[in-house]
């Protein structure tokens, strides 16, 4: 009897641990064991729209990193710091970033477009600033331009 109880308790503890592991690995997808080395890139925009911390950074739709902080710089332009997975460390400094929207009203993310490579370009490294940025498309501005655009011209 006592042996059976011990066995059941052992199974119970194992089931609990298995549930926690499932929540951690399958549900939250925390990258245990995966390559989590990152380097930081900085970009300044004039308007970041609905971009949030932890928004994804994508190259051609593939997630290569995440936004880690959004702050306002001294010249009042929003400064976005991104953590890029160090598996993707070959972006030239002619690359450009744009704030894009998935779907018409979906989440906003940063689209990184790798630039050309010639003798003068360098590879972006930790802490580098991306010069070529395109800001978020704000739906209200677009509607405003559509409504009042003709009369202003």
């Amino acid at each position, binding site marked *: 009897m006592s042996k059976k*109880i*011990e066995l*059941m*308790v052992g*199974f*119970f*503890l194992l*089931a*609990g*641990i*298995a*549930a*926690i592991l*499932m*929540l*951690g690995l*399958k*549900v*939250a*997808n*925390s990258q245990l064991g995966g390559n989590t080395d990152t380097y930081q890139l900085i970009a300044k925009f004039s308007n970041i729209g609905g971009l949030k911390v932890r928004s*994804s950074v994508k190259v051609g739709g593939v997630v290569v990193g995440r936004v880690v902080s959004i702050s306002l710089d001294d010249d009042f332009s929003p400064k976005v710091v991104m953590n890029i997975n160090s598996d993707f460390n070959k972006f030239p400094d002619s690359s450009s970033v744009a704030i894009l929207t998935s779907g018409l009203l979906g989440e906003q993310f940063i689209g990184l477009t790798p630039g050309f490579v010639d003798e003068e370009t360098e590879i972006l490294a930790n802490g580098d600033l991306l010069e070529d940025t395109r800001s978020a498309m704000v739906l209200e501005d677009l509607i405003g331009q559509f409504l009042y655009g003709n009369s202003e011209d």
Partner: protein
Amino acid sequence: MAISSIQQMGRNSLSVIAGLGRAAFMLVGALKPSGRGVKLLPLLIKQLYVVGVQSLIIIVVSGLFIGMVLSLQGYTILVGYGAEQSLGQMVSLSLLRELGPVVSALLFAGRAGSALTAEIGLMKATEQLSSLEMMAIDPLHQIVAPRFWAGVISLPLLAAIFSAVGIIGGHLVGVDWLGVDSGAFWSVMQSSVEWQEDIVNGAIKSIIFAIVVTWIALHKGYDAVPTSEGISKATTSTVVQSSLAILGLDFVLTVVMFGS
């Protein structure tokens, strides 16, 4: 008349405070290391069986059904916006943040808490606790401590099992029956659920609930009037007070964790 009702109020609040004090002394007495020879581990395993393993079935079944209902309700609403892909996010976040810790704590209070109260209350009524003291065994160490630790260990595990089974139930209804894409179900879930923000906070909630529910149940039993009526009152008030404490604390914890 007015004087006597004020006196009644004072008497009530004094007895509440005295009860809190006795509860605190009981917990401290149970948790401070025993001077001699009560071996905790065999007693703890027995109680883990009674408190944890025997609550497993009700937790698994209700987790499965709650996940299925969440999925079905969420689908009928989300499909109106063409957003049924977000079903996984909705099911997993509501289970991990709220329903998992809260519902499993409520079930635990009904299933295990009431049993603990009745058991200890009957031990007191049949003077088993006094007999232990006569044999120089501290009932706080022999009876209360293993049950307390069993509750505190069991409930967070049960809550994790509840959430996991609920998500599987949600997957069953959403993906297998209603036709949400399986890849979207998991990937939207994975991109929105955070280990620290959601899972760890949910676990902290259920650890706090575990301490509160087990403490209330043990105290009510230990403090019960040793008659059959007293035990029945103690059992009822265990369930009522645990449930109220869970729901009230849940609001406070939610404000602290997710409020900002």
